[in-house]
């Protein structure tokens, strides 16, 4: 059996549009206010302290400058390399 279904989602200009961030959600009814990880509702702000602890952002900024690419490009590359087991 093969389902085929199509849906339309109207944009609510007053709500966060997370089109570019598929892993994130804004679900105040389910998880509470703020942008959160869609997988488990943890606030993305929780990442801030961890990032500070490990100086991750500085290292990624430096990598982006060194390679002549954007921060987002570095994120994509890290995701790929991690998924491929290269790092």
């Amino acid at each position, binding site marked *: *059996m093969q389902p085929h279904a199509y*849906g339309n989602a*109207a944009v609510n200009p007053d709500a966060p*549009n997370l*089109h570019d961030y598929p892993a994130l959600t804004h679900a*105040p009814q389910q998880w509470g206010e703020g942008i959160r990880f869609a*997988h488990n509702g943890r606030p993305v702000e929780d990442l801030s302290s961890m990032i500070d602890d490990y100086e991750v952002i500085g290292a990624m900024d430096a990598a982006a400058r060194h390679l002549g690419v954007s921060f987002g490009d570095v994120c994509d590359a890290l995701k790929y390399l991690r998924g491929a087991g290269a790092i």
Partner: protein
Amino acid sequence: MALNYKDSVRNSRLDAVTSALSTTAYLEVFTGTPPGKTSGTFNADTGTKLASLPMSNPAAPPSSGGVLTFSTITTENALASGTPGYARMKTAQNGAAATVVVEMTAGVGSGDLSFNSTLTSGGAVSITSATITEGNSG
């Protein structure tokens, strides 16, 4: 080699889905990958629930030509903003795993349930068409 059923058998298999959905079915849309089953039983919902849409009663008229075409699925506002990853047809709104009858992939421009864009909290979510086609037609 695939089996080749006559259409009345194909229709009966599809109509069993409609019967299983019973009288108060809902289509619910979530983020993430489909939870699937363990030992033949659907696992609990995962991720974030983006939308919960009431289905008709019955959910569909009798199948024809090996195709089940669902009746109107009511438009509702999205519960949350996010990217659809899977959808489930359940016998009840917010139903537990035991109420799941059909699980399918969802996405933006992809998946069994394909949306035109990501969902935004409070934005209308509508289903423009929904069918299930039974294979085994030779």
